């Protein structure tokens, strides 16, 4: 119940309540991926993935905030929260440079929903995590944060 409420308040989420957000008209359903999207999701390197979503020349912007651990506690489930404070953000995508398929997720936000999402990503190694925001005027912006993945042990 609590998850659902939080998710709805945020307008979007990837923690199992997406359907509710869709039902509330905050998140556009995109069950049938367009050919372009499919190519981006299947891209094997970061350059192709960025190109696939049209963001290969995105400008850096600190108004996109990525909240992720400096060192992951478990590379199999890395909590990553992204919010875009850029006005008129209509979509957000999250990419992990070193993952076999870097594009992890892309969401469109409708009806003025707050462009914020909370993900759990799988990461095999230390990598940059990038968040790309697209605004209503068709421009792309990007922010990045490195998340370290370590074998652990040997601390203090």
């Amino acid at each position: 119940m609590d998850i659902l409420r939080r998710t709805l308040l945020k307008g979007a989420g990837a923690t199992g309540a997406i359907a509710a957000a869709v039902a509330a008209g905050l998140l556009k359903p995109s069950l049938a991926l367009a050919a372009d999207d499919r190519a981006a999701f299947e891209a094997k390197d970061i350059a192709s993935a960025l190109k696939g979503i049209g963001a290969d020349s995105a400008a850096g912007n600190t108004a996109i905030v990525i909240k992720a651990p400096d060192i992951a506690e478990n590379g199999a489930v890395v909590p990553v929260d992204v919010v875009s404070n850029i006005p008129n953000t209509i979509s957000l995508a999250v990419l992990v440079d070193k993952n076999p398929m870097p594009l992890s997720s892309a969401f469109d936000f409708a009806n003025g929903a707050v462009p914020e999402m909370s993900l759990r990503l799988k990461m095999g190694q230390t990598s940059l995590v990038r968040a790309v925001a697209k605004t209503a005027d068709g421009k792309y912006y990007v922010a990045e944060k490195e998340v370290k993945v370590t074998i652990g042990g040997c601390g203090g």
Partner: protein
Amino acid sequence: MFMSRREFLHILAAASAAGFALNHRALAAEGGAKRYDLPRHGNVHFLHFTDCHAQLLPVYFREPSVNLGIGAARGKAPHLVGEHLLKAFGIAPKSSDAYALTDLDFVAAARAYGKVGGFAHLATLVKRLRASRPGALLLDGGDTWQGSATALWSRGQDMVDACKLLGVDMMTPHWELTYGAERVKEIVDNELKGKIEFLAQNVKTADFGDAVFSPYALREMNGVPVAVIGQGFPYTPIANPHYLIPDWTMGIQEEEMQKVVNEARGKGAQVVVVLSHNGMDVDLKMASRLTGVDAILGGHTHDGVPAPVIVGNPGGKTLVMNSGSNGKFLSVLDFDVRGGKVRDFRYTLLPVFANLLPVDADMAAHIDKARAPHQTRLAEPLAVSEGLLYRRGNFNGSWDQLILDAMLEVKGAQIAFSPGFRWGTSLLPGQTITFEDVMAQTAITYPYSTLTDMTGATIKDILEDVCDNLFNADPYKQQGGDMVRVGGLAYACDPNAAMGRRIQDMRLNGQPLDAGKTYKVAGWAPVAAGATGEPIWDVITKWLRDKKTIAPRQLNSPKLIGVDGNPGIA
């Protein structure tokens, strides 16, 4: 030197018998216990100790001769050792302070000045300082419930009782959590309730991110509202087994820390102190980014730093201190607060010299009681060490080398790994190694020793990974331990290089390590769930009993590249 082993040990024994008289003379020459008559300053007072690692009795503890600062940290506190440290802080060579803060002439200085720490001596000092500082808060930076046999066997109970008796007001955790979530909650919710505040703003539930412990405490001291915020060791779920606290998540949580600071200020706090187990490099970075924090009293990296580092940030200035380890030091921080503002401060890092402080009778009685049932087992003599045994240092220590040598032989391994823990006390040449001494290096809740087949490539990956935890240019990506100790395998290390390129020239018996070949590697303290194996103390004990006399160890340390002139190396 033509001296038989028997003669050698005889001379050492005579020297140590003479030690008591020697201790008093050397310390008296500097004014004796007068150093503890610290005049009160201002109206807000904090006493701080950290990382005592359950050492209830006085100990020897040799500070590192290698504590490298890389990149921006080069040559700055806490990355100063030996003469460099003395020079930077204006400490007289051969003084008791030099003994407390460096490894210089350690054996001679230890014989001259004697043991440090011990809760019965610390209790006397705390009482003395409290008498002159009404309302003073005693803060415990954590790593208090772990590090000794009696702490492990009582699952922290002997230390919980000792801290209540000592009058600890607030604490924050690291190794405490390795007794498991259930035991920690049992202690915090019952035994500490109303007595010791267990503070950690950065321990949250993994599901909803709810606070597990109180993030901070607000108290009034001599009419001034003060806040203390707890910061547990951020990487406990990574550096120690996550399965022991499976439902909790940690991390630095800098943004949340700022919110807590703001909340405390909003409630009227005129002094805000962070009681931190971040490690000093992380504290320094955090101090440069937070606003509204007057001081960070830190621990974890075991740095005894005699003066605060004053860090500028957008909100003003923050003092960063680190109070050493093993009960060796007590920090005294006085603030003069008038008109709602901190006007001035005084800070003193007091070494706790057991020979200058009489024991506190109540604490001594508690310690005796806690030890009595185990006395025979603790005192069991295993061997005599001819050399100095110590642990601290970025790459190796003679105690670690002893552990590695024991593992290689008992386990029949080609290569051995031992974790880069910074706790573990020192033994002087000629001292008998007892079972208690072995436990002071090994007493953890996951002591399993292992023998694993690893490829050369895996071995390289492990060394690179641990080395990055020590030398990553970003302090927020460091974990605060030292480099994994390595037996059997020679290598070179370039701490300034990027991850993946630091570890070089790995050789086994003179031959380059083959990335594709498999080697037998012994280790202990695995963090993964499901590990089993003979406890490491049994492996070491077996070996010591067999050898009886332990010759000085030949340290296997990497050839270091690119650190010439670094003041973090003697």
